[in-house]
Structure formats: C-alpha cells, structure tokens
C-alpha cells in the first residue's frame, strides 16, 4: 500500500471542511461547558439540601454515562417528545452539557481552594453575598483553575469525533466519507490523525502559556 500524494491533496479541502466543524463544535461546546459548569457549582451551594443533592445526582449521572448514548438521546429520543434540533446543534449541546459536569468539579475545587480568611475578610467588611462571589471568591477561584479548564478544551477536542455517531460532518466523518467513496482509507484516516495532532499541539502550547501566566499570583 503506497501513499498517494495526489489523492491526499484532493481530499485535503474536504478534511479541512470537516476540521472546521470539529473546531466549531469543540469551541461552542466548551463555552457551554464553562458557563454551565459554573452554574452547577453555584446551584450546589444553595441553602436547600434537597436541591443540592438533586443537582449533585444529576451531574453525577451525566458524568458517569458515556457521551455516545447521550448524543443518541438528544438527537434521536428528544424528537419523539417534539424537540427537534439539527445534528451539529445537538452535538454541541451534548458535548457542552457532558463536559460541564467535569468543569463543575474543577470550579468546585477552585472555590474550595480559596483560603478561609478571604471569606472571613468579606464578612468583616460586611460585603453582600453577590459581591463576595463576584469580586472576591470567583476571581480567585477561576484564576487558579484556568490551566485545568484549558486541559478540558483539549479533551473535548479529542472527544469531538464521537459526534459522527449523529452524523455531524466533523473531521472523522469527512474522512470516512471520502474514504468510502474511493475505498482508500489510508490517506484520509492518517491525515485525520495528523490534523488532530497539529491542533492539539497548538492548543497545548497555548494552555501551557496560560498555566505559566496563572501559576502563581
């Protein structure tokens, strides 16, 4: 089996097109994961015990079930209840929700890491609850977890091929399509691997940079 450079060149645009969807899905899903994760974390700190436990079990459930069944659920089951969404949207939402249960843990740890003295200083200054969170606790907590959150971006990127299960035209899906047309899989699948490596390396460098920047105060 020889590498066909001509063929590689021909399919590259298709693959890049797929990569575009991969990146879109990852980034959009990431935004959802960042925001929703914080929402989970804050909801778990409400005064109601019952409510907190409910949130805890919901997130626990989502975290401990695999992504593909979740994708199927959103894409194939929800329409039966009259909720129909496109495959890319479904993929983004599912990816975002799935990973929000991970980022929630990250935020939780970050908040727990803020020294007790910071809370006490807030009480001593009589700051209202909203200000305690917005001005003191969250800025410190989030700063601490930025590197970890960055790693989840890379993890999500690597999980994004699962979206092909619901026919999102992402990178692996495109490769599969061009491959099955010509029945030559070596080039497209290898190139998928290379493209993933390239993007991952670039993101890793960016994350490392964040890490260095936020490592210490």
């Amino acid at each position, binding site marked *: 089996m020889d590498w066909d450079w001509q063929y590689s060149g021909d399919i590259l645009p298709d693959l890049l097109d797929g990569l575009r969807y991969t990146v879109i899905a990852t980034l959009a899903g990431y935004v959802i994961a960042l925001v929703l994760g914080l929402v989970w974390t804050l909801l778990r700190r409400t005064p109601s015990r019952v409510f907190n436990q409910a949130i805890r079990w919901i997130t626990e459930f989502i975290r401990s079930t695999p992504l593909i069944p979740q994708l199927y659920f959103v894409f194939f089951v929800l329409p039966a209840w009259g909720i129909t969404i496109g495959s890319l949207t479904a993929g983004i939402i599912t990816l975002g929700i799935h990973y929000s249960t991970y980022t929630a843990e990250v935020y939780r740890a970050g908040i727990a890491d803020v*020294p007790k003295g910071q809370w006490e*200083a807030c*009480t*001593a*200054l*009589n*700051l209202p609850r909203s*200000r305690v969170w917005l*001005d003191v606790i969250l800025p410190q907590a989030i700063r601490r977890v930025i590197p970890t959150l960055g790693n989840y971006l890379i993890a999500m990127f690597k999980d994004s091929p699962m979206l092909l299960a619901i026919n999102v035209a992402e990178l692996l899906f495109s490769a599969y399509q061009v491959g099955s047309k010509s029945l030559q899989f070596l080039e497209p699948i290898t190139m998928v691997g290379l493209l993933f490596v390239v993007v991952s390396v670039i993101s890793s460098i960016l994350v490392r940079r964040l890490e260095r920047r936020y490592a210490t105060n």
Partner: protein
Amino acid sequence: MPPTESDEVGPGGVGGRPSSESTDTEPESPTPKDSGDDAVPKGEGVSTEKGDAAAAPLPRGEAPGIRFEKVIKRFGHNVVLRELDFTVGPGERVTLIGPSGSGKTTILRLLMTLEKLDEGLIWIGDETLWHMERGGKRVPANQKHLHEMRKQVGMVFQQFNLFPNMNVLRNLTEGPVRVLGLSRDEAVERAKGLLDLVGLGDKIDSHPSQLSGGQQQRVAIARALAMQPRVLLLDEVTSALDPELVVGVQDLLRDIARQSDLTLLCVTHEMTFAKDISDRVLMFDGGQIVEEGPPDQIFGEPSEQRTRDFLQAVLAS
C-alpha cells in the same frame, strides 16, 4: 441591660442608617446628599464636615460599649466559653491575654459574627448582636440584622487577609462602595487619606503580593478603618510579622488608638504594647476571666497565680 446609656443617640445609631441595607445588589446610585452610612453629621464628636473622608479618616464619637452576658460557645463537646460575662465601656480599650486555647480569638470572632453564638447575649451598644426583637420577643437574628450590626464592627486579622485579586486601592474602596454606598470618588479620597495615615500613600496601585508583611498589615488596618467601624477587633495582628516589622505596626495602632474614639478589643502577647494601648487588661483562662485590671496592675502585681504563671511563660519566650 446595655452597657452604655452614654451620650447622644443609641450607640452606633444602628437602624438610623438608610441606604443599602438589603443583602444584595449594588447600592442604588450613591446619592451626593448621602449623609447615609457614616460620617453622620452629628454633634461634636464628629470631628469634620463635608470632605471629611480624606481629612479625618479616624472615626470619632459615639462608640458603643460591648457586653457579654452568660455567653456560651462550644465546638462539639469542647465548651470554649462557659457563661462568660464581661463589659467593655464605650470607647474603652481592652486587651485580652491568656494562654493558648483560652478563648480569646473565639470572643473576637463571635463579635465579628465569624462564629455562631450558642447561648447567652452579646450586646453592642443597646442592641443585641445575635438576637433581634420580633413582636416583643427576642428571636435569633436574621441576615439583615447581622448585616446592620456588623457595620459597627471592624476586624484586623493575624494573616492580614487582603484580597490578592485587587490592588491596594481597590481593597480599600470595595467595602465603602459596595456596602456603605459611597461614590467611587469619595471612596478613593477616603482610601488615600487612610493610606497616608498608615504611611503607604505611595503603594496605592501595588498588589498585596508586592508588599511586605508589615505593609500588608497596614493596608489591612486601613481597610478596616475605611468602613468607619465603632468597634475595632485586633487579633494578634503583629504575630505573623517579621520581628523588625512589628514595632512599626504597633506604633501605628498606638496612634490610631490615641486619635480615635474606637472601642478597642485587642489580643496580644506583647506586654509593652498592651500597656500602651489599653485601659484595662482581661486575663482569660479556660473561657473565663481569671483577673482583670489596669495594665500596670496586671503586668506589675498580678494577684492570681495563673496570671503570674502565664506572664512568666510569655516573658520566657
């Protein structure tokens, strides 16, 4: 029975303060007429008018007294304070001494509402800190009551506890703007006045991490004063400092004590400092007062053996 029937209005004038009591949201636009939260233009005592923020950063006038009435505080099965009774007069300066674990910090933390009261009453002025009146009955305080009562109290911590995500200026303006409803300009002016007072006028844009321990503690003192408390709590504020920085902070506190009318509760192991700063010394052991009196008496000729032992131990260290 409150400890103070003293001058003027109900001490501290709690309740008479409009603006921003609700525990949420920003204070609606800080009104310029705002005589609101502090700087209440009231009789003598208040040493300045108008642009007072910068001019006289130290609170003067109408400090409330404090009274503990049969206060019990437990941590699990460990009873830390057992029916503790004591009174601190308005504007009085009291130093708490005693061996480790005797409950000194707990007393200050109860006053700052950092620990929950188990039983008994704590009076600040003529109001109870942990209880409020509801239909003629005394019920546990709600958040709003605590919020109002806390406005009178400020605390400086052993570990400074400055906000590391804010520069010095913001550390000093956060409370006045968010809690007292000062405008940004007023708050900045007040902050500058206080920074000059603590000798750090040039550090206004620094971050806490760029300051020495002594400087951080000065900023923390300024931050507490920016809220114009009537009661100031100092818990071993120099014991986390390098030895050469201790004196500077002590001198500052001495000046502040001299120039203000604050009711002061101070925990310290530094006897000279305690002598200088306090009107009275309370010696604690096992959550009870063993002995009390003027500093000269307690440090000079203590009558209790436990006090002698303690002083001996402190001197030895």
